[in-house]
């Protein structure tokens, strides 16, 4: 499917290849879950009997990562561009957001969204109570969004100012310069650190176990507290996390290769 990187002129990723990439990733994860189920069922007690609990937990972990990852990416792009603005009132909200989120622990943020936000909203007349999943998604996507914002800002700053000046002198306005000249180049630079954030997000989602969301870590701690056998359980959890991140990076590596093409 992919040609070796030495081919001098590859087209950057088009809609078709992107679709193929998504399809491939989805298929790979389905296959991975099938494989995990088969392997875990073979293992001796206490893992084998409860294999389905681990798989269910792993599925929840992946769901959390994907949903929060997408929202976090959008948040990051918006806040990242805001931070490079020349206008202080555009920069300020993004700066405050990043300051708050990056300066407090994720565990506190998750507990805050779950336990403190509903009563706060109630006191101003909004009766909204997020369930465990969406509480975790809100906290995780805000968190990864703040880190993504800094990555994207760095990417934008890495584009030589001459590029922007040239675009402006050709008659493009600010928005056009950003969307057609600066961002396409910046996005290539930021793919590896964004992937890094995504992998970190997958592992950080384990903190959602504190609000009774049955993801991989809580599934494991249920099993270990029933069987009193922490070694096989923790080893299994670690192995499943590793499998998830491995498959994920397999595909993000492809993505990196493809977006690199245009800059060579």
């Amino acid at each position, binding site marked *: 499917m992919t040609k070796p990187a030495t081919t001098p002129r590859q087209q950057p990723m088009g809609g078709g290849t992107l679709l193929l990439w998504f399809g491939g990733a989805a298929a790979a994860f389905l296959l991975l879950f099938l494989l995990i189920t088969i392997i875990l069922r073979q*293992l001796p007690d206490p893992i084998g009997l409860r294999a389905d609990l681990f798989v269910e937990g792993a599925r929840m972990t992946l769901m959390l990562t994907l949903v929060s990852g997408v929202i976090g990416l959008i948040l990051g792009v918006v806040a990242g561009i805001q931070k490079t603005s020349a206008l202080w009132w555009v920069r300020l909200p993004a700066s405050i957001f990043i300051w708050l989120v990056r300066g407090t622990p994720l565990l506190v943020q998750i507990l805050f969204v779950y336990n403190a936000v509903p009563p706060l909203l109630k006191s101003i007349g909004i009766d909204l*109570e997020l369930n465990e999943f969406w509480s975790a998604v809100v906290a995780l996507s805000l968190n990864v969004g703040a880190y993504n914002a800094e990555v994207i800002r760095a990417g934008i700053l890495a584009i030589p100012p001459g590029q922007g000046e040239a675009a402006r002198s050709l008659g493009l306005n600010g928005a056009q310069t950003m969307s057609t000249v600066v961002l396409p180049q910046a996005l290539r630079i930021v793919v590896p650190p964004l992937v890094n954030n995504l992998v970190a997000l997958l592992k950080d989602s384990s903190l959602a176990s504190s609000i009774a969301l*049955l993801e991989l870590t809580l599934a494991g*701690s249920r099993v270990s*507290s029933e*069987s*009193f056998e*922490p*070694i*096989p359980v923790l080893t299994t959890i670690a192995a499943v996390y590793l499998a998830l991140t491995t498959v994920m990076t397999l595909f993000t590596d492809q993505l990196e290769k493809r977006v690199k093409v245009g800059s060579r």
Partner: protein
Amino acid sequence: MKRPLQTALLTLTALALLASTGQARTWADIKKSGTIKIATEGAFPPFNVLKGKELTGFEVELANELAKSLGLKVQWVTQPFDNLLIGLKSDRYDFVIASHGITPERARAVDFANPHYCTGGAIVTKPGGPMTAAALSGKSVAVQVGTTYLENVRKVSGVKDVKTFPKDTDAQAALMAGRADAWVGDKFTGIELVKAQKGKVVQGALLFNERIGMAVNKGNASLLKELNAALTKSLSDGSYAKLSGKYFGQDVRCKS
């Protein structure tokens, strides 16, 4: 397919062997050192609870008395509940007193002393909520992870959702916040909660009865014998009755 599986199994076995090299302190070792290490949770009022920095509660005072009658100083350790027996198995402390219901699964992993009180798992809910096991059908129930309440709620048919929290107090908070329709926990803790919340919650039926015991590491017979002897003495000389009256206004020892 065969190979990686075998490797994984081998690795697990090797790790398990590495981990099981610890040795529980026997009664002679403890007696010689003069200090006994006791673990509890510290988040289970009125049995074991941290009030600020001070660890107190019925079980804490009882264990202090037992240690005193054995002529030992006490060093307390607090741990998350689901970690307590795991820590005991790796000999981080000599025994655990943390309202562990005696179950066959647990008895396979550790050795239990004679029960030091009898209780039950009770439903607590908001007024108008489910009060019986049958009424739990279609409802969501909050419980603490690694407890007998979790096991027993699972046995109730038709429960929509069992939410497991790291601490009992978190599970109660979920009930208070309306995130669960009921909380299942110890009946005495439930009574305390009802008292503390002044009518915002009510206690329903008992789901099951259980006997509560202290746990020592598997095979530590010498320590178990001393603990049982001290407990028997306390039950007969009136000190247990005094302590039980102070906390519950009744004698909570097992009747049969």
